[in-house]
């Protein structure tokens, strides 16, 4: 089996990019794309593919961090609320400094800071992260309105800022490049580094890791901060796409991210998971979202279909495991 079930995945654990666990997802995705394309040829138009990829990029950036975090057996429900807040902070900093670098830095500092606090609450205060980050979610939802009553407008008119969301490098949208880089870093880290191995180990068996002299708290803290930084990046891209810092943005974003991660086969109990699975999960959810509009179906199905897909994919995965075992 692939690295996903192994507590400490070594280089020997199989070098194929697509583990057999992800095969089910890849097949569902392929079948879906073909079916939608037959029904509505606009689906594979350049404009639409770019639109899908740009939406995927936002989710994938945060989901990359979230995958690491969930592998360490923690979770962060505050990413949606943080996403909105980061955009407002970044935009305000841009307006104040007229410097893209400083604006970006402010966004990263805020996102990372939220991650750090989440991490400290989980590791030092020992608050279950499901609860701790619900608390953080509430504080951020309230806090963003204390920070700004309305959307922070673009008063700086920096052209490079607009490119963050809407720009291209060659034919590729800028957000997709950000997502690709972050995904690649997360992939390499989890797959080929000692740090990655420890991350799996800490989720699989925290006690054993602590006995072996490592600081499991630090690893978890690291994963929280990485997730927060990813939110910082995504928040800036979203602010650029909307040309404003929107305090109302990001509603339900945390559920999309977490749904993509667990759809990708990462276990909520930690120690098991794959970032490639997350990528497929993100693509699947966003293709469904897009396909329903392209086909002109009732948009309420955008809730029903992902719900069914999450359950069916998990079911198929378990059936496949059983077939392999017998």
């Amino acid at each position, binding site marked *: 089996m692939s690295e996903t079930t192994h507590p400490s995945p070594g280089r020997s654990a199989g070098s194929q990019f697509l583990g057999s666990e992800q095969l089910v997802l890849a097949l569902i995705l392929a079948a879906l794309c073909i079916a939608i394309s037959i029904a509505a040829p606009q689906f594979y138009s350049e404009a639409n593919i770019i639109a899908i990829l740009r*939406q995927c990029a936002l989710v994938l950036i945060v989901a990359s961090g979230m995958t690491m975090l969930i592998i360490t057996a923690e979770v962060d429900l505050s990413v949606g609320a943080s996403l909105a807040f980061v955009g407002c902070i970044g935009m305000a900093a841009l307006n104040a400094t007229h410097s893209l670098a400083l604006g970006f830095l402010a966004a990263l500092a805020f996102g990372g800071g939220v991650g750090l606090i989440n991490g400290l609450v989980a590791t030092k205060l020992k608050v279950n992260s499901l609860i701790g980050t619900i608390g953080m979610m509430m504080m951020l939802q309230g806090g963003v309105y204390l920070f700004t009553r309305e*959307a922070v407008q673009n008063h700086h008119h920096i052209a490079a800022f607009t490119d963050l*969301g809407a720009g291209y490098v060659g034919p590729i949208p800028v957000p997709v490049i950000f997502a690709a880089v972050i995904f690649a870093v997360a992939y390499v880290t989890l797959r080929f580094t000692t740090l990655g191995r420890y991350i799996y180990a800490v989720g699989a068996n925290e006690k054993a890791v602590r006995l072996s002299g490592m600081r499991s708290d630090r690893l978890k803290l690291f994963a929280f901060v990485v997730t927060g930084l990813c939110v910082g990046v995504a928040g800036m891209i979203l602010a650029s*796409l909307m040309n404003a810092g929107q305090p109302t943005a990001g509603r339900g974003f945390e559920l999309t991210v977490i749904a993509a991660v667990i759809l990708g086969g990462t276990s909520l109990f930690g120690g098991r998971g794959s970032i490639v699975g997350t990528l497929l999960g993100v693509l699947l959810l966003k293709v469904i*979202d897009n396909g329903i509009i392209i086909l002109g179906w009732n948009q309420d199905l955008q809730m029903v279909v992902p719900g069914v897909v999450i359950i069916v994919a998990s079911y198929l995965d378990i059936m496949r495991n059983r077939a392999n075992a017998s």
Partner: protein
Amino acid sequence: MNWSKSLLFASAATLAMTAFAQAQDMPKRIGYVTNYATHEWYQNVIKGMEARAKELGIAFEVQDANLDIAKQVAAAEDFMAKGVDVLIITPVNEEGVVPLLRQAKSNDMAVVLEGNPVKGMTTMVAICDYDTGYHAGVEAGKYAKENLNGVAKVMNVGLPLLSATVLRSQGFMDGIKTEIPEAVMVHDLDGGGNPDRALEVSSAALAKNSDINIIYGINDNSSLGGLQAWKAAGKSQDGLLTVGTGGEGLAFINAMENEPSYKIEAAMFPEKVGFTAIDAAVKVFNGEEVPEHIVSPTAPMIGEDWKKYYSVEGTTRTVNWEGINSVQAPEKCMKTSADLK
């Protein structure tokens, strides 16, 4: 006494107040349970209420349901237990506050509704959503005739969740058809009323139908989300018209100043709604005869029109009451939520 149309606000408000004070008993406390206090629209409704209550010397308190019907019921119960004299409610959902009205009646509590009509209500202060969309639609039609070769292919960034927003979209399409009978709604989207969701669904719709040339949003978040999707797709704004609704914050002013396609905004003057609601509360408290629907005016703003009603300094927007009070409200709405059923 139709003071709202004729009086200059600043100088005559005191006059009006004395006139009120002589004719009527003032309630001591008014409680307002709003639907969604952090939204700009309600922020401005509350501002209008606060200003008017202060003038009349009434203690005014606000509770926020934050879009949660269960919380709305709880907050209204709190107010009744506290013993406010009049309750103003913006229902999270018009069917959901029927038991509240029943409870209020059994407690002899005067209630004024804002926004949506409810079975068994005394009176409601609200704009006409259908008319708001309709008049903006007529203006959009005229614009399209002149500048878009008479073609109108509309992407509606809507919100099916609320009857008010459904009415706006319907009104817009009916209005535009008075000028361009062959106008069509190419896409009827659920943008959730949120900028990021509106952006996402609009991206998909624009990818499917590249011939769209008018974006209509049921609020500013929706129209701006649609426009941002247009820009993110790398399209030029030549040959595009964007129409927003609400006009409650700075966002639309920013867009009208900076975005070449953002030409029309259907203004709904939330401050005026708040102002009118407090006056209605005073009347109901005194047992005066009030119409079932007190209409608060709306008007399409084209190009620089917004300067008639608002002035902006830095990041604060101030109301020009003279301008807003000069807008005529219709006696009755062309269509209401009752027509949707």
